[in-house]
């Protein structure tokens, strides 16, 4: 089943490389739901997630000739997407630091311009917010895509043991947080 899927992806990529750009849309349609869900879980809001997905698809489209056909397209795409998401989170952290340092001046300027300073949107789930980004990626891939530690490692570009530790920490933290908040699932 998985091999069939790989073959199908590879055929679509081959035809894209031959110049049939409509096939890239087919490829995009196939993964847009999964990619948006993953990015949304990592970034916490839909707008940023859509942005990250678009950037990831653009990167894939522009570097399709560098794709290694011996590997899985989905893993390659998820690697690019998770890197985009991590970049966005880094940008957001930098922005928050800037806002903190310039808070007073920033507020004045925004008021003068008739705008209300908005904080970056929070994560969809407060529980996921408590995890670090790599733990979030690991747990989402494990739960929603059924990935194993070694597959997560290939997406995160780290060793299988590191991925296993990320996943384990994420699962432990989430369980503890759920018990703290008395959420029954």
């Amino acid at each position, binding site marked *: 089943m998985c091999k069939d899927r790989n073959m199908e992806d590879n055929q679509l990529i081959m035809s894209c490389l031959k110049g049939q750009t409509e096939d890239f849309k087919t490829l995009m349609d196939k993964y847009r739901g999964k990619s948006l869900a993953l990015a949304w879980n990592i970034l916490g809001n839909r707008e940023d997630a859509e942005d990250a997905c*678009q950037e990831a*698809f*653009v990167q894939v*489209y522009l570097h399709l000739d560098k794709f290694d056909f011996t590997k899985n397209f989905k893993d390659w795409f998820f690697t690019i997407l998770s890197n985009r998401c991590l970049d966005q989170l880094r940008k957001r952290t930098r922005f928050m630091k800037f806002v903190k340092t310039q808070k007073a001046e920033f507020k004045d300027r925004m008021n003068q311009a008739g705008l209300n300073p908005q904080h970056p949107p929070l994560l969809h789930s407060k529980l*996921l917010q408590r995890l670090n980004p790599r733990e979030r990626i690991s747990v989402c891939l*494990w739960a929603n895509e059924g990935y194993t530690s070694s597959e997560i490692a290939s997406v995160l570009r780290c060793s299988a043991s590191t991925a296993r*530790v990320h996943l*384990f920490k994420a699962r*432990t933290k989430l369980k503890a947080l759920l018990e703290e908040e008395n959420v029954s*699932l």
Partner: protein
Amino acid sequence: MSRCKIIWYAFAFGPLKIWQDFLIRVHIERCPDCQKKLISREAVQGITIQESQCVDADSLWNGFEQKVKKTNKNERQVFGPRRRWTYGMVVLLVFLATAIWFIVLPQLRKTRIEERINGHFRINYIRIENKPAQAYVYQPQGSQMIIVWAQKNFRGE
């Protein structure tokens, strides 16, 4: 149960990932008590966004097309052939100027000095009190200074 506690303490106080991974593989993954401390796949699915919630992702394609156009334009601007030639020419000129400055000019200067020395410095003979003197000429190594020492030729007296 007490063994599990020791394992969890060992996990918390051993920050090395290889050590933590070893503990996970050896004990935590196999122990039913430890597994109870981990969240299940279904529970995670319940608190995360699922693919089924993202079916209306049509706006992705429009944004994608715009971004591809924008990126292509930027790439053309950055790596255009005209610019590539210009950068190439600039690099070549800088290289030539450096080569001239450091290799050709010092050699020219050296030959000019040598020519000047050869052209102007000539001693045919030295005479003291109208008699030929004994002369010593020497030049210190690496210096352009030439010292001439002349003394009366006592043997000739």
